[in-house]
């Protein structure tokens, strides 16, 4: 590991909020991934309907209470978390791939190609992407998850492209790149094997910072009825259901909303920590 990375790692570890945030995220992810499976062996699940009577508040039997059909809310939140996290990660990954490819190509090509490509990014920045996304989702009427991933990713790559371009521009002039060129290595190879790994730092930071935005976008789409469709549920759909019932059953909003908020906050803190670790701000004297 280079000394730069080592120094960054050290800074990150000493950044208390980032460490706590990381721990929280790992807990949430683990709970969502393994929790329902464990609970299943104990006989709890998210789909047993008990029309006994309406929604029940949190109790020792149901830690998050139940919804109006008697389904255990904690289980629903954990399973919803799987979808929410998967959507967030995959969509961000798609944004990452598009952004990196675009930005690196633009920077490496240089000249007028770079100019044109960045102009396009500038114009796209001006387009109200969320509104556009709503229009496209509503018009398309297919509600498959894959389409959802692709579309959310498609609106989130702009900043990534700019960051990557900036990094690649900076690295292009460095010695090791010149050396690789001198020995005749093809451009793509140089790009992938030498330049990008060194640009990884900021890319990781912005990916982490993009995750919460993607998660909130998915939640917003679900609020409009355009996101994840029944029978799948995500935090967005649970929160939407809960927000319509907050007068009567507040835990139906507070529990999934709380978990989602905690996750998003943790992601933001972690992203902040990563960014501070990689690009420390000089304090004023």
């Amino acid at each position, binding site marked *: 590991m280079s000394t730069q990375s080592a120094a960054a790692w050290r800074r990150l570890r000493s950044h208390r*909020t980032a460490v706590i945030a990381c721990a929280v995220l790992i807990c949430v992810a683990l709970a969502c991934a393994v929790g329902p499976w464990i609970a299943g062996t104990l006989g709890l699940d998210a789909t047993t309907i008990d029309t006994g009577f309406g929604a029940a508040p949190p109790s020792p039997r149901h830690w998050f209470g139940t919804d109006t059909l008697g389904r255990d809310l904690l289980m629903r939140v954990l399973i919803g978390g799987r979808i929410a996290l998967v959507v967030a990660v995959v969509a961000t990954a798609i944004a990452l791939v598009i952004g990196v490819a675009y930005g690196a190509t633009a920077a490496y090509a240089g000249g007028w190609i770079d100019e044109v490509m960045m102009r396009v990014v500038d*114009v796209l920045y*001006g*387009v*109200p992407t969320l*509104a556009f996304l*709503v*229009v*496209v989702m*509503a*018009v*398309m*009427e297919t509600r498959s998850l894959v389409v959802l991933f692709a579309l959310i990713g498609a609106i989130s790559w702009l900043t990534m492209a700019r960051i990557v371009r900036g990094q690649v521009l900076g690295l292009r002039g460095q010695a090791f790149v010149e050396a690789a060129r001198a020995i005749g290595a093809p451009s793509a190879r140089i790009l992938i094997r030498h330049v990008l790994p060194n640009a990884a730092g900021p890319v990781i930071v912005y990916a982490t910072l993009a995750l*919460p935005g993607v998660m*909130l976008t998915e*939640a*917003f789409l679900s*609020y*409009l009825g355009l996101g994840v469709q029944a029978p799948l549920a995500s935090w967005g759909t649970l*929160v*939407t259901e809960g*927000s*319509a019932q*907050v*007068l009567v059953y*507040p835990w139906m*909003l*507070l529990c999934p*909303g709380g978990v*989602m*908020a905690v996750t*998003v*906050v943790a992601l*933001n*803190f972690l992203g*902040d920590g990563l960014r501070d670790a990689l690009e420390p*701000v*000089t*304090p*004023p*004297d």
Partner: protein
Amino acid sequence: MIQFVAARLFGGLGVIAAVATVCFFLLRAAPGGPFDSEARMSPEIQHSLEERYHLRDPLWRQYAAYMAGLAHGDLGQSIKRPQTVNELIAAHFPVSATIGLCALGMAIGLGMTMGVEAARRHNRWPDHGLMALALIGISIPSFVVGPMLVSLVSVRLGWLPPVRIDGPSGYVLPAITLGLIYTGVIARLARAGLLEVLGQDFVRTARAKGLAERVVVWKHALRLGVLPVVTYLGPATAALISGSLVVEKVFQVPGLGFYFVNSIADRDYPVLTGVFVFYVAILVALNLVVDLVHSWLDPRIAQRNR
């Protein structure tokens, strides 16, 4: 300067035309038309309605007619409602704009204060605390905040009205719901911008000259430190005043955002395109204003633009 403004306006018109074109074709490419869901309508009636709205004309002619109207500022006639799109916007935009401006006021006032205080007490507890608050504000979506506020403040405690705006008190909860995220973002941007500036030479010079800390920060540093906030304000204001779907649903205010989603389901092409174009036009105008404010705040930028 004039050339700069003119160039930007020209570019803006191009963006508007492009958005209108994309919307136009995208919507008509979608399956289904405005009258398909009327199960009881005989084909005769459907035919004559489609003729009335020129939906049976060749596509290029519809497009040409629409763009010609657009050039005159006429956004067309709604298919599902008797009003023209201009009338709809004129009736509902003021509501969205007022709520948006209230939210903007809160976001700027509260956000700037938080950001400046955090920057001044960098790396001490107030900094961490305020930034944590800002981060939490960004992380909670408006459709969680809104219903919670209504449930708590309006329904349980009865301090503010839960829906509708029948007087100044009706603006409070919608403005908070809408503005919370922007407050957080502005706080963080202000802090970051200010920190960067506070480390610069001219600030050290000002301090060395013996000026009071308050003057240094608010009068000299902030002028440049606020630049990231100003850049952000362009798109932020556009988004705020063009109507929020969440606020309109939770608080039942007749704003403009409603037409985004509902006219898609209705396939009311002129309304959707018109509202979208209107939003982009506001965005372009605000971005231009932002750039001008930028040049004013930072003379170096103005020189570059000349």
